[in-house]
């Protein structure tokens, strides 16, 4: 398919805001993100309250590896940047470039998930399991929930890529791309708090 064949008509500069439906979708998504903020905040509050209750299990400073967290942070930050470029390509109606950036986003998301699985697996080997202590339970719930959001994002964006390949970039598909990019940035924003509050503060003690 040609990158320009959708432009035949008059696809506007910001196709995601061209229709009332598109604008409402974006607004509705922001309200959802407000609710997501509450969801993650609640898990953060539980973690903050329980993070010193380690029972017989290992403490945060004993198991966390700064290098692993740093690599994960970089992967997610780059992934977020790829998603920014995808939306910019969309605004310029460069469909092929947009798909390329989206694929980069998804691949980096998968790398992040792989690293997280590797990390959790190492923790379990060190006796830090879900039922070990209040600290471990709240840790896995919080970080695992973030991981689940990444997994959902990967699946969602993959499906959107397939839909774009099938239907092209239109005023119907554009809001979906935009909203998924906002979601992906939100996941990165949550990760900023996770690496700060969970990993770095855990390392400090």
């Amino acid at each position, binding site marked *: 398919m040609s990158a320009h064949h959708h*432009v035949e008509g008059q696809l506007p500069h910001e196709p995601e805001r061209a229709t009332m439906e598109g604008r409402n979708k974006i607004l509705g998504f922001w309200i959802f993100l407000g609710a997501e903020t509450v969801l993650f905040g609640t898990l953060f*509050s539980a973690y903050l*309250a329980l993070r010193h209750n380690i029972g017989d299990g290992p403490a945060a400073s004993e198991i966390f590896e700064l290098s692993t*967290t740093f690599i994960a942070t970089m992967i997610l*930050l780059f992934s977020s940047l790829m998603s920014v470029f995808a939306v910019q390509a969309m605004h310029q109606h460069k469909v092929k470039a947009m798909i390329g950036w989206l694929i980069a986003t998804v691949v980096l998301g998968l790398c992040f998930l792989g690293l997280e699985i590797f990390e959790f697996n190492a923790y379990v080997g060190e006796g830090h399991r879900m039922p070990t202590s209040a600290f471990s339970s709240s840790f896995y719930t919080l970080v695992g929930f973030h991981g689940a959001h990444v997994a959902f994002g990967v699946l969602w964006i993959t499906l959107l890529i397939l839909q774009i390949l099938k239907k092209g970039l239109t005023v119907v598909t554009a809001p979906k791309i935009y909203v998924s990019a*906002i979601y992906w940035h939100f996941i990165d*924003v949550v990760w900023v708090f996770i690496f700060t509050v969970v990993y*770095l503060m855990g390392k400090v003690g």
Partner: protein
Amino acid sequence: MSSNHSVTEGEARRHKVEGPRKHIVAFILSLALTLIAFATVASGEINTQFTYIILVGMALVQVFVQMAFWMHMKDRGHLFPIIAIISGVVVVFTMVIMALYWVWW
């Protein structure tokens, strides 16, 4: 794009197509803030209290940068997104203070 897209081009001119520059600046800023946070902890030479302050400061600035530029919250027409997120944050603050108070005092 060819000339038969005059409407699109006109639109683009009115909206002034945004370049990647400020997004790359936001990325470099995020990178720097992340590095400062990790370096503070890795060096281990700063006392705990002050490390906490640095970490929270770096995180808040980075989140602000990413939300403003990458999530477009600085752009026009983002009043409701700002209200939605602030409402969420108010509940989160209440939850965090409540949980800490409940368990530790």
